[in-house]
């Protein structure tokens, strides 16, 4: 009988020696160059961290390669960040260049620390999820190729966090990211009438729809449901509850782009990301329309923002009317909220810009 409920390994056994002895005693840090920082302890000890980008979807051989570097320079320790990056740490300044060299040999970018774009928080997509309206890994690769230098160099006034989710379940902090790409459907589910009754509970299916779009089939001889299409906003919740309600559609599926969210409490409270581009059809393998509009937004932001201003803070200062004008993104009826709190987003003042 296998052991159960042992929980994860004790993290204390995983810490490098310099961390164990300086735990809670760090005094300050400095960013030395892209992807490299130095933490200095009250004890006088120093810790150098080199951060490298990772595709997240990695083979065990990839992990072993990284382990080799950690064995060589870091006494066999390493960590990952909350955004999937790899961090190699050493108390020895002289190891830094070796680490960087070996990481580069593996083809990994050094960067993501400080005022730059870090790795993209993302999800499964066509690699693994039944729910996906787009692929995640392919989008991430395409976007990071396009924005590569924003990871490896300091070209921004603040951190810029990108997230990709392959459906509106939004696995990740997509709803609060500076830039968010979200897979969406734009066609209602196609009900599989043969299978529905045997695979799903009809009342739960009906109840799952937030807009009440689903009802029993009007033909009493068909033991199934039907969708009032004009009420459906393609959320996919019915599909989550019932496999016989698939939404995936080669032409109807694609992505939306949301912008201006943040999570930190620094300066401005956390903010939700808000709709910038309602729909771009899937165009694999490289989604060129998506990457180019993202690049455009990043460039305008980089140029127009003030130091230390996150993307959402910048938009708050200049106003959304200016944001749409500067980025040349058309404003459409889809941008106007019509969900529960919609009226709270309507502008109730004569204060606006032309």
């Amino acid at each position, binding site marked *: 009988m*296998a052991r*159960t409920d*042992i*929980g*994860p*390994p004790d*993290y204390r*056994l*995983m*810490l490098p020696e310099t961390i164990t002895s300086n*735990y809670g005693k*760090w005094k*300050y840090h400095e960013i030395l160059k892209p992807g490299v920082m130095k*933490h200095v302890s009250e004890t006088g000890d120093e810790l150098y*961290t080199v951060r490298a980008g*990772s595709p*997240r*979807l990695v*083979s*065990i*051989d*990839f992990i072993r390669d990284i382990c080799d570097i950690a*064995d060589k320079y870091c006494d*066999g*320790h390493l960590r990952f*960040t*909350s955004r*999937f990056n790899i961090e190699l740490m050493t108390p020895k300044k002289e190891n830094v260049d070796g680490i960087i060299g070996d990481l580069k040999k593996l*083809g*990994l*970018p050094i960067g993501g620390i400080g005022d730059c774009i870090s790795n993209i928080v993302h999800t499964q997509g*066509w*690699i*693994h999820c*039944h*729910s996906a309206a787009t692929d995640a890994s*392919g989008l991430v*690769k*395409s976007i*990071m190729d396009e924005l*590569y230098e924003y990871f490896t160099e300091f070209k921004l006034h603040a951190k810029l966090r990108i997230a990709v989710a392959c459906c509106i379940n*939004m*696995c990740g902090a997509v709803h609060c990211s500076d830039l968010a790409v979200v897979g969406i459907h734009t066609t209602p589910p196609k009900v599989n009438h043969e299978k529905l009754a045997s695979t799903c509970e009809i009342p739960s299916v009906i109840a799952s729809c937030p807009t009440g779009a689903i009802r029993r089939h009007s033909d009493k001889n068909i033991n199934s449901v039907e969708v009032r299409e004009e009420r459906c906003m393609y959320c996919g919740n019915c599909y*989550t*509850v019932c496999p016989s309600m698939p939404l*995936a*559609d*080669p*032409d109807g*599926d694609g992505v939306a782009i949301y912008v201006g969210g943040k*999570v*930190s*409490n*620094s*300066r401005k409270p956390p903010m*939700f990301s808000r709709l910038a581009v309602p729909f771009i059809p899937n165009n*694999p*393998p*490289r989604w060129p329309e998506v990457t180019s509009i993202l690049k455009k937004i990043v460039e305008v932001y980089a140029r127009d923002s003030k130091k230390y201003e996150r993307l959402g803070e910048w938009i708050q200062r200049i106003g959304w009317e200016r944001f749409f004008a500067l980025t040349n993104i058309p404003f459409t009826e889809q941008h106007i909220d019509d*969900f529960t709190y919609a009226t709270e987003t309507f502008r109730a003042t004569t204060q606006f810009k032309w």
Partner: protein
Amino acid sequence: MASDTPLLDELEKGPWPSFVKEIKRSAGKSPKAKDLLGVVEQSYKDKITHWKHGGIVGVTGYGGGVIGRYTDIPEKFPNAEQMHTIRVNHPSGWFYTTKALRTVCDIWEKHGSGLTNMHGSTGDIILLGTDTDQLQPAFNTLTENGFDLGGSGSALRTPSGCVGPARCEWACIDSPHLIYDLTQTFQDELHRPRWPYKFKIKASACPNDCVAAIARADFTIIGTWRDSIRIDQAAVKEYASKGLDIENLIVARCPGQALEYDAKAQKLSVKPQDCLRCMHCISKMTKAIRPGKETGATILIGGKAPILRGAFLSWVLVPFIKVEPPYTEIKELLEKIWDWWDEHGRNRERIAETIGRLGLKDFLKAVDLKPIPQMVYHPRSNPFVFF
């Protein structure tokens, strides 16, 4: 010879490291990885997913930790017919010895596709792609080697926390230890789904919130302090002399208008009662400013993604709480929250949605907390008040 995967091959080009390359690396050794490549190429062609709704698979004694997955084109890619995922709970702070990591790799070489996500966005090690009959053996070997599964389903999900005091000078609480302790304490809640829906705990050791807890955790713990930030005037002078525009970049950006700068004397002062503990001045002048000494955490409730009543950021529940082992107060609070939610929550209703539906008032009573102004941006404007 023409490639079988012309579309995916495109994604091997360009400077960012390629996941396609990684799948191909595994495909060399694992037929499952090879067929996964085929399935994904097919999706790239068809522009739809080729994965079916997962069936229920798992390991003995657990109700979660495994995501069952089957392709809808097994006839073309028989080795990808089953493509289950094992979620392995990461060590706090995502620290590893190479030994531990290599062990996981070896297990996954033997029992799975050799593909992983380091990490999943909840924080687990994701072992990506295996067959039903490999689940139990994989699990057995994992636990033999000190690893255990993470959460899935309507259960507690794998808690995670920022690197905190392990490497960060701003940590106000010991996030790695707190997360480890809570994870150990609530193993049963993690492994045996029995709630209305999922429940997530995340801890960041300061308001910079480096695990995005406020947006992604039902129960959000964020380090803070109750006294004043500490300013080292000598270091302020150094920043000033190095050319930092303290007036415009620090003082003017303080959301509490709590800072004052005497440019002549190069002296920075704070009105502690106006400081909102936002971290800005500290982050930008880390050698000169640090959090206060009387540290603890703010607890917030209800962060989540948009399904189904819209996304929520976590809301202030306890403005300040001491965070010291054995964390009894926090654990008791969690139990009370779960009790109330378990009783009142509807199926697939996150705690925020239950609170939204039934009102904060009832919830506060159930968890023995008093209403205080810190819980809201502002009081109600409507006159529809119950007495």
